[in-house]
């Protein structure tokens, strides 16, 4: 038999997951094309972990379906649920002598007391590790009794990464009944202080007490930066352990809310109190080891990796010359190389040991036609170098990261791009942004500090910040009334990240279905908004503005009551659902990118009719955004013009109320129609 339906008797096929999805607060999720290692910020579970280690729970008979479509953020692990809390968590980090290969280790020990306040259950306890760390021991106690822990180890699949060396281990920890505690003791070792960079206070459960201790022998030179301590109520002290000749730093805090994952939120380094550990150097019996005392040390280390790449300029040159053979000047050549890498190299992220920091050989990326951000940046640079141009590698932290190079740690950057100097100007090329034009920059790197290679030195610079004008989306409609329909022609024009957004979607659609998909996009899947004769600019050329033109017949858009015609001139109603739920939202909101949407509709007033009423204008001009909508009669036409401008993507919590009020005004505009009446 290939299989049998006679599975376990009356065995409730509640199949699958035992624990509902929980807020994904613990893990730094990479933005697209970030090249650095995944450094888990919290130590407890995640959705993935819950799935991985939820085989049993307290009872195999009744588990929970994998399909749980009605789970919301109010899972047992958000602060709204008071079922499970951490009564106390102690973390100890001690720098100790390691082995020949890794002379300094960071021994870590975590003791966590979980308490069940409402009803019993099991929770996933997980820990992450990778090539540079290991989990040494795990012990668990349930209501005082030692529990036999069967720890599962697995590869950890990181979203957006083809391959990662991140590993996860964990087990399900029972909480026996209401009022009881379970305890977990976990020992871990980080094999190199370079990779020990942050200690966060947040966990996925509410913590009543937290204590973080760092034991730093005086042979270890480091700096501890206290980040986001503002109102966190963290108490700190420093003592000297004479016996071990070590400084002991202790941080305590009470009543710490769990981390909460929210869409379009700033990265954890902006949100939560944490310690940033900058390891400068260690005096070991074998001599002094320099880590990252300053940005020069960091660059020196990066540079040492770059020197090991093994690029073969000759192998690159042929292709570079071929790509640029028809190009007359250097600027044209740069553009050609950039576009070629964007078009022909697929982004595939690998993170494997030191390869998480060192770019792949340019000739390998060229041959394979795929690479991660480092590989793509390195190939771009090598191609340009082969053409005699001054191109360099750049390390950069995307906007997800709160730090800049004044803090020399591996947490400061997560991405690599290429800089090219031409006639006194510097351009940055990020080929992982597949459909963005030359000298246009994605929001995530705009204004960010870059560390640029410069032989044995380095330079620091910034990617230029762009205004909303880089990313425009303009729609112009010229319409007239035919019976109950609005009829006319429509033009769209997209630039910058607006183009990139459209083209990314378009190229994911199979081309035999592209026409229909484009039609559905333009008509918002409303067949009454019938479009025909669609023409687009070349979807493979994003160096120019992207344009779309078509004819429109908007059926039943004109409503005739008595002598009057009622017409709605706004079809798209962008940002109609832009309201922020302030009852749920905890963090600031970062919109995807700065942009301007312009919509202009010109309606010919039908013969025999005149304007009876036009909706009032809306004119909101906030320093961070503007919403404008104006109806005007111009001779025998009504012109509707709307502008939505996002000037600054960072909306702070204190601005939510104003934003919601302004969105309400915009929505009100969408609820207005014009009235024409017989003359």
């Amino acid at each position: 038999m290939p299989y049998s339906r006679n599975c376990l008797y009356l065995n409730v096929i509640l199949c699958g997951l035992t624990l509902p999805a929980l807020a994904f607060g613990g893990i730094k999720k990479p933005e697209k094309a970030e090249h650095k290692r995944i450094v888990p910020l919290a130590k407890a579970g995640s959705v993935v972990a819950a799935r991985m280690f939820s085989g049993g729970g307290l009872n195999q008979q009744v588990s929970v379906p994998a399909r749980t479509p009605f789970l919301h953020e109010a899972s047992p692990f958000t602060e709204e649920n008071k079922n499970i809390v951490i009564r106390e968590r102690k973390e100890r980090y001690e720098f100790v002598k390691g082995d020949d290969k890794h002379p300094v280790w960071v021994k870590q020990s975590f003791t966590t007391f979980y308490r069940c306040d409402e009803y019993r259950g099991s929770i996933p306890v997980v820990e992450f590790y990778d090539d540079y760390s290991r989990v040494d021991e795990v012990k668990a106690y349930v209501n005082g009794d030692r529990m036999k822990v069967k720890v599962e180890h697995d590869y950890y699949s990181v979203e957006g990464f083809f391959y990662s060396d991140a590993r996860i281990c964990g087990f399900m920890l029972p909480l026996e009944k209401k009022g009881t505690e379970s305890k977990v003791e976990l020992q871990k070792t980080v094999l190199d202080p370079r990779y020990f960079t942050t200690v966060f206070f947040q966990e996925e459960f509410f913590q009543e007490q937290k204590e973080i201790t760092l034991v730093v022998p005086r042979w270890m030179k480091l700096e501890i930066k206290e980040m986001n301590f503002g109102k966190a109520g963290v108490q700190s002290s420093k003592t000297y352990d004479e016996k071990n000749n070590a400084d002991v730093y202790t941080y305590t805090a009470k009543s710490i809310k769990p981390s909460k994952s929210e869409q379009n939120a700033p990265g954890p380094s902006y949100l939560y109190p944490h310690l940033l550990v900058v390891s400068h150097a260690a005096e070991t019996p074998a001599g002094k080891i320099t880590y990252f005392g300053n940005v020069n040390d960091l660059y020196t280390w990066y540079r040492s990796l770059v020197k090991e790449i093994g690029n073969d300029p000759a192998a690159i040159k042929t292709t570079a010359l071929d790509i640029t053979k028809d190009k007359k000047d250097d600027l044209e050549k740069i553009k050609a190389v950039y576009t070629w890498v964007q078009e022909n190299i697929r982004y595939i992220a690998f993170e494997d040991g030191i390869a998480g920091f060192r770019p792949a050989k340019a000739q390998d990326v060229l041959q394979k036609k795929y690479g991660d951000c480092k590989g793509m940046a390195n190939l771009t640079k090598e191609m340009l170098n082969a053409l005699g141009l001054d191109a360099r590698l750049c390390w950069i932290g995307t906007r997800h990261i709160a730090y800049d190079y004044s803090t020399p740690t591996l947490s400061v950057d997560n991405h690599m791009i290429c800089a090219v100097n031409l006639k006194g100007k510097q351009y940055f090329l990020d080929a992982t942004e597949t459909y963005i034009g030359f000298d246009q920059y994605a929001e995530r790197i705009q204004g960010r500090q870059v560390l640029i290679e410069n032989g044995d030195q380095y330079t620091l610079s910034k990617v230029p910040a762009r205004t909303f004008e880089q990313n425009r989306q303009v729609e112009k409609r010229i319409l007239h009334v035919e019976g109950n329909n609005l009829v006319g022609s429509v033009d769209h024009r997209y630039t910058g990240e607006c183009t990139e957004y459209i083209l990314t979607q378009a190229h994911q659609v199979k081309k035999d279905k592209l026409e229909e998909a484009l039609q559905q996009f333009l008509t918002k899947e409303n067949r009454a908004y019938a479009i025909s004769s669609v023409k687009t600019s070349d979807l493979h050329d994003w160096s120019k503005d992207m344009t779309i033109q078509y004819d429109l017949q908007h059926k039943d858009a004109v409503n005739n009551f008595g002598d009057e015609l009622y017409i709605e001139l706004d079809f798209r109603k962008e940002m109609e659902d832009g309201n922020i739920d302030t009852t749920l939202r905890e963090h600031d909101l970062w919109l995807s990118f700065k942009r301007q949407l312009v919509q202009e509709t010109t309606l010919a007033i039908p013969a025999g009719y005149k304007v009876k009423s036009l909706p009032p204008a809306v004119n909101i001009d906030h320093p961070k955004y503007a919403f404008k909508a104006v109806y005007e009669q111009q001779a025998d036409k009504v012109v509707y013009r709307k502008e939505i401008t996002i000037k600054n993507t960072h909306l702070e919590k204190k601005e939510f109320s104003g934003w919601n009020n302004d969105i309400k005004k915009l929505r009100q505009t969408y609820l207005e129609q014009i009235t024409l009446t017989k003359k």
Partner: protein
Amino acid sequence: MKTYIAILICLLLLITGMMAQERKVEPWDAKAEVKYKKRLAEVKEEIWSWKQAGFKNRTVPAEYAKESAVVLAKHIELTTPDKDRELHRSIRVLVAINDKAALEEYSEFSFKQYESLSSWYALEPFDKMTKVTYMGARIFKKDGGTREIYSDEAVVTEVNRRSHKTRKLAIPDLQVGDMIEYFVREERFINHANAYTEELFVLGDEEPVMEYSVHVSAWEEVFALEYRCMNGAPNFKQKIADHMMQLDMLVKNVPPQPVKLWMNPFRQIPMVRLHLRVGARREKLGRRKEGTIYSNPNALKTRDEAVAELVAMRNATSSGTLPFLGEVWDNVKQFKKTNKNASDEELTHYIYYLIRYMGLYRVNPQDEIVVDQRRNWAGLSERNFLRYVNYMLVKNDIDADFVLATPRYGPSQNEVFETDDFRVMLKTVGKKPVYMSAEGIFSNTEYIPAEFEGQKAPLVTGGPRDESIKGNVEIPYSEAKQNRQVENLLISFGQDDLQQLKIDRTSSATGHFKQPLQQKLLLYEDYYDAERQALGIKQSFMDEFADSKRNRSLADEYRNAFEKARKDVKESFLDEVKTQFDNQPESLDKFSVLKMGLRHNEPEISYNMAFTMNGYIKKAGSNYIIDAGRLIGPQMSIKPSQRERKADVYMPFARSFEYNLEFRIPAGYTLEGADKLARSIDNECGSFVVTTKQAEGKLTVSVKKIYKNAFAPAAKWPQLLEMVDAAEAFQQQKILLRKA
């Protein structure tokens, strides 16, 4: 000995579990890798040397130039290299990559290099319990260059010592305009005498296939072959030579299948099902004679095998298969005692609901506390549950038959090919039969799952002695009125803001619409208590726990969990409104379930909500335009590519929707345009009828949309389209609220 070793390995794993994190390749893996590479070299040489003409093709026909990808050749081989029940399954495909979507699709492969076929033993590559997979790809560049890559170069993404090793392969140098040719070879053993492979060759996919070929070769001394060609698929060419049974098929120019809406591939797309199975000396139930090719075998043979399996299952009654039998009997006896005149039908219902309760509703102290919506997806094994019900019916002298049904999205009775093509229901005997199925925690009697409707099915008596079929039954289709959703909306306008609608909504659903809503909206605490009382079970588990010293705290914990579930269910109601209206309510002011619909005699779930909604009223000067059409919620839209249709239409079931909208016209305003809302489309396939009535400051709009049948022949598609389009167009309709 082997078991002992396996246990020892497991124990060692327990002890050394923490060491498993080391990244170095473990000895078993390293050793296997050497063998893997050697075998891979042989496999690739074998597969690349295949001579099918299609693999030399480098031209995409002009008619398919706009396709995302075109399969120029696809060849599948199923071979048995020796008489040791080893099986090699290979597929080789040549694809032209025409766009980036296809490039993405074909640029990464993930596969299980080793996969244990047994849950008992640790993974041991190359033993008889492990399937080993090899793969390779070569790229033909536009400029004539080629590239190759093989599975041993893929990155390892998962190693589970107990079950599998997974790898991922990124295809190098693949660009739009190139062709990729890849193969996948699986090697495994057939370990059980009754086992067979399940092959399905589908001649119609998203991508056109220019040449599709299959070759099967099996030792006649060991194996038997059987296949069935369906929906116009060609027969294999077959022969037996050199001790090998051989099947071959070559189909050219298989067009893509563009229509996905309401299709039934098993009954519409040409396909061939094939089993390669271990043969027996003599043919008998469940076994095929070695050295024999069964071409399109009589479906009755499969049916008889299914009957035999069913009879064996029916008769397998023991304390293991009938747990808590004592309690069931106690309750049944009590029911009979207090309902002396209960009819067989009433007793049938009681038994069904009692076993449903015992299996899914009641709680034991050791159970995990799950009382929120997740519980609503609980289900029971179809055969085991119905066996239990049947056992109790038989013991209470109620005659019932098992119904061996073939789901309508699978093969029909005359095209069944294996016993798993059948599913089971139970039906009492008599003039008014009671149908019983196992559809989850809200399953009720007198319900026939939609997938069985309209199917002819053999009956097997529930009594323990009969072993053959006792005729057939034509399972009835449900009518549209039985699968009904009704929305009653009382709509008033905000006093301070006329553009805000206040909606009091009472909704109900019956038939096939009922269960999804029950799963979404019901609370375990409510339906547990309702069923317990209906069954006459006096003590709730909460009472039991409260009375028990040992479990007393559990009652308290359950109370906490109930409280939380009741608080959280608001989110489900909010989500339900949002789904129905495709619009987020501004506020949900009240919500309640009026009827849970837990039993056959309570055929509907109904619930009430009160909420406010924005976005339906547009201001125009001093007047207001009401988007009346949108208040019935989003309606189906048939895409341009789906509007021309040559394939018959298989919908899940006949169904009806009713929307009754009562607008309370605000003082100082008159309502215009109601007459424009009225319309009537009524044809053989469906109807969409809108009527209006205006009186005493109210406008009542009644909308009825009916899909009259679950099936429509392609010729009647325009009629169905007419109805669907009418409903979609209605969404544009508006009425005017004019300032008096």
